[in-house]
């Protein structure tokens, strides 16, 4: 038997090498995009945060930019506003949980209700902000409602006052999060094994006990995910609402970190400080993000 040795010689690329090369090649565009437009800017932000920078020229100042920034009352106002807005999170989670429980009862037409409840999710927060502005306005729905209930002497203008504008923003935020979070919780409820509930009912557990000891623990992963998504949205997705509803005002009453970055950079042209603020926001979301990664990680 003659044995040809064509295949015996090691080729330039073995199969395993080919697979690895293909893998690296396939991942390359995504990696390049993320490096170029996300990772590099983070590095640049760190550099520029130590400089005086107007977008064209930058002069190295050093760490004093940071001490300066922390002495700026606007930064503290923005952080404070963000902190106050965190009070909206329980509502942004609680209301959807209730609504999801309602939908889960599957009364007549629940599928139609589900679609209706989720529908605002599709709408831009710019548009929802416009509508919210109408709601809170002097001749808006809120005052009509108040008058309808007999309090005709009360006339609110929540967006017009420093004391109430942030609350109005928070309420709007809760509304915008209802669809997404309800969707999450409803999915969670759908994966709940009904035989568990039935078994508990046979064991004589009441509604509350079933909710507390069976439904809620089952939903915990979904609630965690919703919590993280809600907080991240709170830190980084309010821009549209603020832009159309208040422009950050009155004063700095509704200026959050993300809006402060925009204002500092684009209204005041202080790119260096804005980059520095960006890093602070980055750290804040990174803390939440680590929680999120652990959620994903625990799944694999």
């Amino acid at each position, binding site marked *: *038997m*003659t*044995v*040809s*040795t*064509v*295949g*015996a*010689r*090691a*080729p330039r690329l*073995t*199969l*395993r090498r*080919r697979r690895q090369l293909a893998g690296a090649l396939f991942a390359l565009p995504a990696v390049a995009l993320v490096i170029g437009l996300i990772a590099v800017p983070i590095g640049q932000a760190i550099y520029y945060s130590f400089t005086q920078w107007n977008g064209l020229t930058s002069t190295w100042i050093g760490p004093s930019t940071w001490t300066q920034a922390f002495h700026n009352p606007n930064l503290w106002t923005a952080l404070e506003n963000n902190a106050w807005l965190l009070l909206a999170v329980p509502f942004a989670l609680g209301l959807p949980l209730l609504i999801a429980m309602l939908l889960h009862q599957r009364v007549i037409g629940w599928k139609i209700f589900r679609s209706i409840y989720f529908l605002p999710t599709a709408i831009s927060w710019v548009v929802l902000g416009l509508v919210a502005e109408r709601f809170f306005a002097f001749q808006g729905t809120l005052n009509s409602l108040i008058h309808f209930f007999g309090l005709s002497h009360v006339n609110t203008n929540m967006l017009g006052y420093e004391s109430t504008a942030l609350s109005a923003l928070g309420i709007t935020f809760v509304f915008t999060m209802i669809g997404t979070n309800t969707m999450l919780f409803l999915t969670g409820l759908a994966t709940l094994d009904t035989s568990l509930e039935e078994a508990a009912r046979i064991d004589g557990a009441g509604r509350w006990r079933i909710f507390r000891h069976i439904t809620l623990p089952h939903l915990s992963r979904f609630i965690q995910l919703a919590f993280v998504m809600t907080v991240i949205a709170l830190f980084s997705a309010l821009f549209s609402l603020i832009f159309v509803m208040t422009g950050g005002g009155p004063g700095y009453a509704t200026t959050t970190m993300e809006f402060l970055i925009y204002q500092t950079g684009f209204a005041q042209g202080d790119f260096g400080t804005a980059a520095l603020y960006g890093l602070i926001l980055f750290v804040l979301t990174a803390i939440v993000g680590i929680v999120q990664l652990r959620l994903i990680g625990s799944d694999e």
Partner: protein
Amino acid sequence: MAEITFSGVTKVFPGDVTAVDNLNLHVADGEFMVLVGPSGCGKTTALRMLAGLEEISSGTLSIGGRVVNHVLPKDRDVAMVFQNYALYPHMTVAQNMGFALKIRGESKAEVDRKVREAATILRLGEYLDRRPRALSGGQRQRVAMGRAIVRSPQAFLMDEPLSNLDAQLRVEMRVEIARIQRLLGVATVYVTHDQIEAMTMGDRVAVMRGGQLQQVAPPQVLYDHPANEFVAGFMGSPPMNLVRARISPSEGRVGLVVGDQRLDVPAAYGASHDLPREEGAEVVLGVRPEDIDVVGGDVTGPTLKTRVERREALGAEILVHLSVADAGTARSVAYDEDVAVARPTMLVARMAPQARVEVGDVLTVRLNEERLHFFDSTRGVTLRRECA
């Protein structure tokens, strides 16, 4: 069509796990070779190396006289049938079967003709336009076969192709695959953990364990003359009984002691087997369940006094579990674990359903003295001398 040769093929996975250890195996042109062994024995790795899906760490592998160590799968001209079939879900049956030909650049008419031909052989004609999702398990299995057939490759590689089917279909497809293979005469390497498939389908069977080839032989030879305890225990269901015994020479016969019972076996074994001669030397005695008979009172030949512990009626036969009186402990069947587990010496006997045995009966059983097996008590290899 071609022959396949593994020579000294070894696969070491990262982390120094040797999956296949110095495998030497020759599959003749047109031969149906079954690779069998418990999970993790290296049979699938061997097949995947043959397909080119896994690299070879050392040794040479050739198909049709061509060394293929570094040949890409697509250039090896082999077709593979996967355990889960791996049908392309978005393609119809016909497209699935014709895909490899299409890639190869054959004309549409040619592809069509070959697909129809294969569909006829596999009786898939009416399903050609369906998607895999709309097929039953058995039909999917046929499509997977069809995908291999249309290519008329040098070799078929099948990785447990029947293990996802229910018992009845498996029996049907066993016959079907063997029929098609014989019809096409293509060299086939068939991996399975099921010794019945190995026995019924293979021209020859290669038994593997722990990455090492234990024995290659036609099924009946494996059954009748297992090369070692592992093969003896793996082939056949229930497996061969393996009992630890000590040599105790007596005049003219080979004397054995099991526990404290004496057992005389024909002197011929002394000639055909490489039995130890010194008093008290240990061997492992093997006897198949069908080679144990109940006998009354005084008989000659190798007999043991036993007690019936359990009785399993299987309809056509009964399996009687016997404990050997005063036998101490015996070696456990070797392929479970490498360690011998101490437990009462048990024998399983296969008997006709008419046999009147009840649990608790004390029976004298005779071992078929023509069909005894002896293995080295430490290495497990057969003590039989090669009959040239």
